[in-house]
């Protein structure tokens, strides 16, 4: 499983890439493999206020709908519209083209509460 070193991770399998005062967020390679072929992504609304660990998006496979949680508190400033026409980007490039949304972080220090790559690798065994 690919677990890039420069990202932060959650127990619920989201990843966070810090980009200045923003955080780009998606689901991990491990998560996409567990979910299998993604057929629909319900994106959050730009401007929405995200609470840490609050449900913010939904990723659906053929079999089931799975909630996606905001790793940290912030405001949604961008969503990945490309997923509307090609939700499988979540599978093919989970850490790149398959990103889901960008938060403007309320407090950039919040990412320190998240797992680093080593801790996440351990969590998924």
């Amino acid at each position: 499983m690919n677990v890039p070193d420069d990202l932060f991770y959650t127990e619920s399998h989201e990843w966070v890439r810090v980009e200045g005062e923003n955080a780009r967020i998606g689901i991990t390679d491990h998560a996409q493999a567990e979910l299998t072929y993604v057929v629909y992504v319900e994106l959050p609304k730009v401007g929405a206020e995200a609470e840490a660990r609050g449900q913010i998006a939904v990723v659906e496979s053929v079999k089931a709908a799975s909630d996606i949680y905001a790793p940290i508190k912030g405001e949604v400033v961008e969503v990945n519209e490309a997923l509307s026409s090609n939700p499988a980007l979540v599978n093919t490039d989970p850490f790149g083209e398959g990103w889901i949304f960008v938060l403007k972080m309320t407090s950039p220090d919040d990412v320190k509460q998240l797992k680093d790559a080593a801790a996440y690798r351990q969590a998924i065994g």
Partner: protein
Amino acid sequence: MSDAASKTTPLYEEHQRAGGKIIPFGGWLMPVQYTSITDEHQAVRNNVGVFDISHMGQLTASGAPTAGWLNQMLTNNIDKLAVGTGQYTFLLNEEGGIIDDLIVYRTGLEEFLLVVNASRTEEDFAWLQKSIGGGIRFANRSADFAGLAIQGPKVVELFQLLFRRQIELPARNEIKDFEFLGLNLSIARTGYTGEDGVEVFFPAADAPTIWNEILAKGQALGLRPCGLGARDTLRLEMCYPLNGNDLTPEHNPIEAGLGFFVDLSKPEFIGRSVLARIKESGAPRKLVPFKMKAKGPPPRPHYGVWRDGEQISEVTSGTLSPSLNQGIGMAYVPSEHARIGSELEIEIRGQKFPAVVEKKPLYKKA
């Protein structure tokens, strides 16, 4: 994930070896998929796939009064069954509600095999046992048998490879015994996918040998082991009902649109008077297939079904159809909204998405 009370089939280790993702299902630990639901679904539509159906129940009954007794207990007409043929039928309660849907085979003049849903096996057996008369031997043989469903357009080709010669598979709805690798197989030309295919039953101990031989010989034909996920998408595209979702004791075969498998010309069977009344007056609600009108989230069981600003029902089965790449489902709706072309709305996470009532089946081969 695993639950101490869950049972496993004789192929449990083979599923793990084949990369199966195991989930609890009706008291059993079963593979939901091996690679992906979509890949397995397409393998069945285009080539051939093999499903473990060992969790399904096998009840056997024999003796001179058996046919008469089963005709009292089941909706379809046993007298129409020649030796070596089977029929789809229902086990109803006194109110006409569905306890189970099953296939009954006449394996001998006075011998019958009932193949029932896994989660209903014990309940069916107890219900039938309650009203058994003298001279009938009735047994729950579920633990003794394993089963495979082998489904897809290349099934005939697969069997030529397996037997290394031309063999004549039984005709649709027929069951026949074969010897294979020195083992005994009962092969029925039945299935739950809408493709040509067979369901094969054999002693539980032989399961790994037969499974591995099929996987090996099937490779050249693009055969895939398939899980419950693909089984569900395949059957839903055909609008075949799933017990527990679409069929429950709160529903009867008439409103489920399956009156064809109820023979009201029989003088008596459990539930008959209720069904005759419903047939006479018309069912107030009907099970209908529907398609989502636009791209969007797929419908799922229990999502609300709306019409004219009012919730009228809920979805009983729903998924994204891999063949159509469109959301599909089924729901019981009031009969005035059950016509083909009738507009519905499906509520998904608080938002309503347009859907339209369609004709069965939802998927037809080009």
